[in-house]
């Protein structure tokens, strides 16, 4: 390593200080016109960040002064040994400013630009990356654009912490339960117990899903306040990969639909294991449960109903960020990415790949879709649909034209097929068996994910439901 005399180091440090000072200007002053409790919390966080920034600058100023003194002393023929000792003492005394606690409330809806995040991370020293991973796992685990292995480690730490918190909470609620005789309070505590146990079950499902070789916990968000205990995934969102999304040539990202939640992750990962194996070597797949899917009890809620766009509009920016992050984490050697949406998940996926959305998605597959809007989201040859016999949802055309009747969309078969080698692929029937291993449907999705759609068995999946819609003018 080349060495630098104190004077030259001081000049470089002065330039770096100026850049650091400019970065802090964004924190100057309060956010205009904001009052109330939330503003108080934000102002507190802002003040803490400003103080840390000022302390960093003061630290730098101290070192600048020491370097200047050393340079002047050397120019004045002071004994180098004495200058060396004095400068070493000054440098030893700097850089000990405490970092302070991490800010709270990081639950961005789209998050920072994954490309910027990736460049920021690439510019960090390994020690700084390690410190961030250790000290700020909730931030590191949530940032789209960071390497999968880094996010996995951080999110596993978060998962263990969330499970521990929930177990403590359950114990505390049980303790209150045994001390209570009041019937009203009993009912209230009973509901609390139900909620925390539901969260524990969801966290256990996530833990089970990542408890296998080659699995990675790419995202985990736990929000006890959103946990209504009524099933689905409210309160816990997660994305789990099988395979290395940072190295795989092909990556499939599956988004689930109505009534789903992280509870089904272990089973879904089993399907994705089979799908990736059928797609071929170098394939990774992700079960993305990163949005609050609409639930059965929310049908009458206009903002959350499966009949409306609310959950899709809320979930799509999250999916865009996640999909963009896949490519951002591996600049220069992006994967072939297929976005797969099932049921209402196809509505979310379509919103995510619409113009202005995720750019790195190469193919889109809609399974049992109630509609994907007016355009399929990708050009002919890269937009695919599967409609199984006896799937009433796929004929509703609730969110635009029936995808299996849209031009530019290629239909993949879900019927029983006998392959040239004599093997039989089973038919998928109904709404929930599109990725069942051994079916034509799952095999077809695998060919698209694996980048060899020429091997797919095509079929537009037109059945009695479609003919009925045609008769009634749908």
């Amino acid at each position, binding site marked *: 390593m080349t060495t630098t005399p104190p004077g030259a180091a001081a000049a470089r440090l002065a330039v*770096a200080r100026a850049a650091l000072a400019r*970065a802090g200007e964004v924190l100057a002053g309060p956010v205009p016109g904001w009052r109330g409790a939330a503003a108080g919390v*934000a102002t507190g966080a802002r003040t803490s960040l400003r103080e840390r920034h000022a302390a*960093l600058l003061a630290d730098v100023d101290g070192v600048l002064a020491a370097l200047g003194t050393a340079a002047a002393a050397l120019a004045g023929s002071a004994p180098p040994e004495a200058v060396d000792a004095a400068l070493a003492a000054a*440098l030893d005394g700097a850089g000990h400013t405490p970092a302070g606690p991490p800010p709270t409330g990081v*639950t961005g809806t789209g998050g920072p630009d994954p490309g910027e995040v990736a460049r920021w991370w690439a510019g960090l*020293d390994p020690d700084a990356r390690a410190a961030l991973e250790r000290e700020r796992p909730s*931030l590191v685990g949530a940032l789209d654009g960071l390497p999968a292995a880094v996010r996995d480690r951080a999110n596993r730490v978060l998962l263990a912490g969330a499970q521990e918190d929930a177990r403590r909470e359950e114990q505390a609620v049980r303790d209150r339960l045994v001390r209570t005789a009041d019937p009203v309070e009993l009912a209230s505590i009973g509901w609390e117990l139900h909620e925390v146990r539901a969260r524990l079950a969801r966290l256990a499902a996530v833990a089970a899903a990542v408890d296998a070789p080659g699995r990675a916990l790419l995202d985990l968000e736990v929000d006890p306040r959103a946990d209504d205990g009524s099933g689905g995934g409210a309160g816990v969102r997660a994305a789990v990969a099988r395979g290395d999304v940072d190295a795989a040539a092909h990556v499939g990202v599956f988004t689930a639909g109505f009534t789903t939640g992280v509870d089904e992750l272990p089973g879904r990962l089993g399907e994705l294991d089979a799908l990736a194996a059928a797609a071929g070597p170098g394939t990774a797949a992700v079960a993305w449960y990163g949005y609050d899917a609409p639930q059965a009890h929310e049908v009458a809620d206009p903002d959350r109903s499966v009949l409306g766009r609310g959950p899709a509009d809320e979930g799509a920016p999250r999916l865009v960020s996640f999909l963009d992050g896949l490519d951002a984490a591996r600049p220069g050697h992006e994967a072939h990415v297929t976005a797969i949406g099932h049921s209402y998940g196809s509505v979310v996926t379509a919103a995510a790949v619409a113009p202005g959305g995720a750019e790195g998605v190469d193919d889109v597959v809609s399974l049992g879709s109630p509609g994907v809007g007016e355009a399929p989201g990708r050009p002919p040859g890269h937009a695919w649909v599967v409609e199984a016999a006896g799937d009433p949802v796929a004929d509703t055309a609730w969110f635009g034209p029936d995808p299996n009747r849209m031009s530019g969309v290629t239909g993949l078969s879900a019927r029983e097929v006998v392959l040239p080698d004599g093997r039989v692929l089973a038919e998928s029937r109904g709404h929930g068996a599109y990725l069942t291993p051994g079916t034509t449907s799952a095999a077809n999705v695998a060919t698209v994910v694996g980048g060899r759609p020429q091997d797919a068995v095509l079929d537009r999946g037109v059945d009695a439901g479609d003919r009925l819609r045609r008769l009634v003018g749908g």
Partner: protein
Amino acid sequence: MRPEELQGAGRACVAAALAVPVTATAGAVRGTEVLPGGRAGPAAAALADRWEVAVALWSADVVAHGEALAAAGEAYATGDEDAAAVLAGP
């Protein structure tokens, strides 16, 4: 308070934090030496390590703060729309 101002302030924080030259401060002192084999060299390297971590943590926390502001702005916007719907009546 206008939610879009809050979201804008949040985005500005994130952009500024991600643009921080995280290693510049540390890089400026790393390699500083008065005497070959002297004490200042190792002290400068150790300080560079500490500064890398400190600046990275600070910039990461500004990212988190910006995200929280943007999320709060979005929550206010949603609440405002809900309130407007209530006032508009059935």
